[in-house]
Each structure stands twice: as structure tokens, then as C-alpha cells.
């Protein structure tokens, strides 16, 4: 089922022609209305008229989050205040907040993008959609809300919090589709079970659109099983729009980029060269229709790959894979790219091991040495040295198989690894200090 079949299944050649036309328009909008782009394009010796093919985009400079901070709040707006319908802002946890403006047309396109994901989980105007993302400056709540309205669904704007009431609404209002972060979906599921329900069989819910934070394969499976639903992974970022930039269809092979709205490239974060489809690198996004906040070659710092393989669902838009991590988190160990999320994924497959962990990197001569510190679960038979050695062997083999790097496992006492409510310090890199 599609929301906009003529766009979502548009033949590739036609889609690329549409992208080229819109890309030229977007470059023009940026160049003519945002001083930063004009300066950067001029410095690089390019104008929007130089774009003759999609590949010509590589001649244009990148923008990064810092550019938005430097131009806080409205320096990168391409529209006057009268035309700005709404403002969203990033949390600013790591510095100055970034502000993004949306015109009425921008908001309409956003709703359409998200509504395509609602169709991917089988939703229609008959569906009831419960939005348990926070509403506010954060794009999750209002983005999902706009998608539900675009589709013509019954929208329940519960926002986040008051989890028991969330469960009550799910049950009493016969919610079909839930939208929230994966961790909140799991909390809602567990709360429902604690309240004595089996949401998988007793609730009507059949689809879930979850995003805005990383989620391991196991956690995803747990959410799908506990709530009994089709899981749709949604990608988006406030700098570009919000949730709906890419969404996962029932084939589960990746997330279809809304390619009529966004042009995506994968680059090597070190050389900044564009990589071919299938290769892993940093995702770079150019907006094609955004009026107020056009983004030209925005470096997302998210690491993934693009697949151009035809999808059985019939959509022609290329797909991005699961986000593997952030370029900031990427470790290069013995020349191999490793993300803490990969290690976490392996750990979650071992119920004997607690999910807290710490990676300590040191140098042993010319080689990098990786030590993974983990704790066993409280009920693990610590009296048996053999059982511990066996667990160490199995965990080590699984990590080697997954990362292609040998990892020394060290079992540590409880609470050796600091617990954190927010972002835990998972990696301690001592390589510079141990030469």
C-alpha cells in the first residue's frame, strides 16, 4: 500500500530528472537568499547554473552543524518572517542550539513524507495513530502528527510521559499505529504487561513507527514481539526536516529515502570523496524542496550505506541501511572501522552478560589492543571458573566474527563500570598515552 504511488514508484529515470530539476532550484534558493551559501559557492567558483547533472553536486561545498550554530538563529533562513510558519530547534545538548524554519509548504511536504511510512505499516485514513513522541521544539511529536493528519488518520496526540495512560489509550481507543522512540515503545509494552495485558494479542495495534535513537536488532525484535506489530524504522534529523527523511517498508531491507525531497550521498569522512552505492560512509543530505532552510550537502555525521537494489515492495526510491553510528563514535582499530553499537549488539545476544560495558584501547608495540570490560548478570554461577572461561571464549569468538578484530574480555566486579542516565562513557582510548 502506498500513500503517493505516483511518486513512490516513479521510474528511476523520471525520478532522477525530477531530482535534477529540484536540485537546481534548491541551489538557486540557497545561493540567492542565504549569504553563507553565496560566499561558499563563490569561494568554490561555482554557481547554481553549473549543475548539469546530479553528479555535478560534488563540486559544491559541504555545510556542517557548526555553520548553523554560527548563524544562530536565522542566518541560514531563505525566507522572511512572514513566510515562516513554524520553528523547530535541536536540543543543543552539545552546544548552541540549531534553529530550523519551515514554511507552510515545507510542513506539508513533511507530513507527506511521514505519511508514506504510515502506509508502509499498513495504515490508511481508517487508522488510529497514537503519537507518543514529545511535542515541542523536538521534531518527533509534531512530525508524526503531521503525517497522521496528511494520511487522514485519527490522531491521538498523547505526547510522551504518563505511561499507564498511554497503555489505557492504546487499549480503549483501539490504536492501530504507535509512534515514539524505541526505548519508550519498550517501556509502554512492559507497562502494559505489568498492568496485566498481553498487548500482542489483546490490543488492536498492528504497526509501529520508531526512531530518533539507536536500537539494536534484539531490542527491535522484543518491541515487535511484545506489542505484536510491524516495526518501521524512521530516520530523520531536525536540521534536514525531522522524522520521515527515510522510512522502512515491510521488506525490512533498509529505509526508503524520500528521494523526491532529498538527494543523498555517502562520503568518506576523511577524504570527503563520494563513495559508490553499497559502501559504508557518512551520509550527506541535500534538500530538494525545502523553502525556508535549504541544506546543501549537509554532513549528518551518521554512518550508513545506500542500496540501489530494487525493492520487492515496488518503491523505486533507494534505501539507506540501519544507522551504524556517528562518525564521532567510529573507532579505527588495527585499520578496521568499529562502532561501539556493533559491540553492544553482540553483548545483547549474551543474556549472561550485563549491558553495561566499557572498551579500553591501548597500544602494544605497533598494534592496537582492545579490552572489553563487562559484568556478569547477578545470577551467573560465579563459583565456576570453567563457566566464566567458557563465557569469555564464546563472547570473544562472537566479537571477533562480528568486528574482524580480536577483543580481550575482562570480567569486572559490579559497579566498576559507571552507570549513566544520559550518554555513558563507553570508550576509553589510551592509545596516544601508551606508546
Amino acid at each position, binding site marked *: 500500500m502506498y500513500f503517493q504511488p505516483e511518486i513512490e514508484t516513479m521510474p528511476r529515470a523520471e525520478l532522477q530528472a525530477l531530482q535534477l530539476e529540484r536540485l537546481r532550484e534548491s541551489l538557486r534558493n540557497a545561493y540567492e537568499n542565504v549569504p553563507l551559501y553565496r560566499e561558499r559557492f563563490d569561494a568554490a567558483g561555482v554557481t547554481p547554473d553549473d549543475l548539469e547533472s546530479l553528479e555535478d553536486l560534488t563540486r559544491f561545498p559541504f555545510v556542517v552543524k557548526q555553520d548553523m550554530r554560527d548563524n544562530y538563529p536565522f542566518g541560514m533562513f531563505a525566507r522572511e518572517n512572514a513566510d515562516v510558519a513554524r520553528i523547530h530547534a535541536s536540543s543543543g545538548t552539545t552546544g548552541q542550539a540549531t534553529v530550523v524554519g519551515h514554511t507552510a509548504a515545507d510542513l506539508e511536504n513533511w507530513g507527506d513524507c511521514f505519511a508514506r511510512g504510515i502506509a508502509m505499516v499498513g495504515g490508511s485514513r481508517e487508522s488510529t495513530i497514537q503519537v507518543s513522541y514529545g511535542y515541542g521544539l523536538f521534531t518527533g511529536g509534531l512530525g508524526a502528527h503531521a503525517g497522521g493528519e496528511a494520511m487522514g488518520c485519527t490522531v491521538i496526540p498523547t505526547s510522551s510521559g504518563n505511561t499507564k495512560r498511554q497503555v489505557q489509550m492504546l487499549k480503549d481507543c483501539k490504536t492501530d499505529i504507535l509512534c515514539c522512540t524505541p526505548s519508550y515503545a519498550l517501556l509502554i509494552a512492559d507497562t502494559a504487561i505489568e498492568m496485566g495485558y498481553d498487548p500482542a494479542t489483546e490490543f488492536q495495534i498492528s504497526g509501529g513507527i520508531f526512531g530518533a535513537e539507536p536500537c539494536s536488532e534484539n531490542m527491535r525484535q522484543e518491541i515487535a514481539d511484545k506489542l505484536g506489530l510491524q516495526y518501521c524504522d524512521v530516520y530523520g534529523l531536525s536540521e534536514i526536516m525531522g522524522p520521515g527523511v527515510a522510512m522502512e517498508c515491510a521488506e525490512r531491507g533498509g529505509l526508503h529515502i524520500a528521494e523526491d525531497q532529498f538527494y543523498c550521498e555517502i562520503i568518506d569522512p576523511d577524504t570527503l570523496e563520494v563513495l559508490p552505492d553499497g559502501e559504508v560512509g557518512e551520509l550527506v543530505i541535500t534538500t530538494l524542496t525545502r523553502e525556508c532552510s535549504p541544506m546543501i550537502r549537509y554532513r549528518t555525521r551518521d554512518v550508513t550505506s545506500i542500496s540501489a537494489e530494487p525493492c520487492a515492495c515496488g518503491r523505486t526510491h533507494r534505501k539507506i541501511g540501519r544507522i551504524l553510528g556517528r562518525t564521532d563514535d567510529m573507532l579505527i582499530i588495527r585499520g578496521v572501522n568499529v562502532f561501539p553499537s556493533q559491540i553492544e549488539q553482540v553483548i545483547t545476544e549474551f543474556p549472561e552478560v550485563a549491558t553495561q560495558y566499557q572498551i579500553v584501547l591501548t597500544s602494544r608495540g605497533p598494534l592496537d589492543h582492545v579490552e572489553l570490560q563487562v*559484568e*556478569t548478570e*547477578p545470577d551467573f*554461577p*560465579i*563459583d*565456576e*571458573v*570453567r563457566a*566464566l*572461561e567458557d563465557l569469555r571464549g564464546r563472547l570473544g569468538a562472537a566479537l571477533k566474527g562480528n568486528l574482524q578484530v580480536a577483543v580481550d574480555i*575482562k*570480567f*569486572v*566486579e*559490579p*559497579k*566498576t563500570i559507571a552507570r549513566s542516565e544520559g550518554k555513558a562513557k563507553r570508550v576509553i582510548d589510551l592509545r596516544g598515552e601508551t606508546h
Partner: protein
Amino acid sequence: MISQLTVFLANEKGRLAAACRTLADADINLAALFIADTADFGIVRIFCDRPNRAAAVLAEAGFRASITPVIAVSVADEPGALARLLGFCHEASMNVEYGYCFSVAGGTAVDVLKIEGEGAEEALAAAGFKILAPEEVYVVDED
């Protein structure tokens, strides 16, 4: 079966001292202590009074501690007593995972064995070995 206190410790300076200090502060008396050590960690096996309370006190202080059921056999404190016991275990195809011994007053010794599988205690008793009950070796706590 009697309860042995088992503690998982990082193989680092001061950890054993910290664990023993925690037990001392809770007024726990140790009869015997043995360490199985590896490069990274040590498994400390302790024979003490009120083992359940000892494990709870350690866990509360952040240690990983648990109770392990083991067999305690009272033997004569003389040459050959342990050899006879282990000889019987071997003949009966019992797999001894680990063991340790200590002498007590009155010319007897206690041989502590962790034997894989079920039924070892009954087999030893049937063969005439004197199996010790918890109250014979330490103060039993309620929980």
C-alpha cells in the same frame, strides 16, 4: 550440603582486603578461605558462620557474592584420610570440581568438596563417610 560463600573479585590490589573488611565489620567469623586466581579475577571461597548474611552484606557493599552448596566430610586428622575419600570418589566416577581441607580441634579434619552432578552426598554417606551438617560447622542463619 553446607553453604559456602563465594566472592568474585577483580585481580587487583586491595580487593581481597576490602572484601574481608566488609565481612569483619559485619562481625562474620571465617573458618577457612581459599582463592582460585586467574590473570584478571579471583574466585574466593569462604567457609564462615552465617554465610547467607555474609553474602547479603557483601552484595550490599557492591561485591558479587553468592552461596554455593558444597559437601563437607569429617575425616581423621591423619595421613591417608583425604586419599581414601578421593579414591572412593574416583571409583564411583564422581567428578570433583575443586576441594580444600582444614584441620579442626579434636584430631579431626574437614574435607570440603564440590562435586559435579547430584547424589554425591548420599553415595558418600552410604559408603560410611561422615557428612557434616551445617550446624556442625558454622552458625546457621535464619534466611
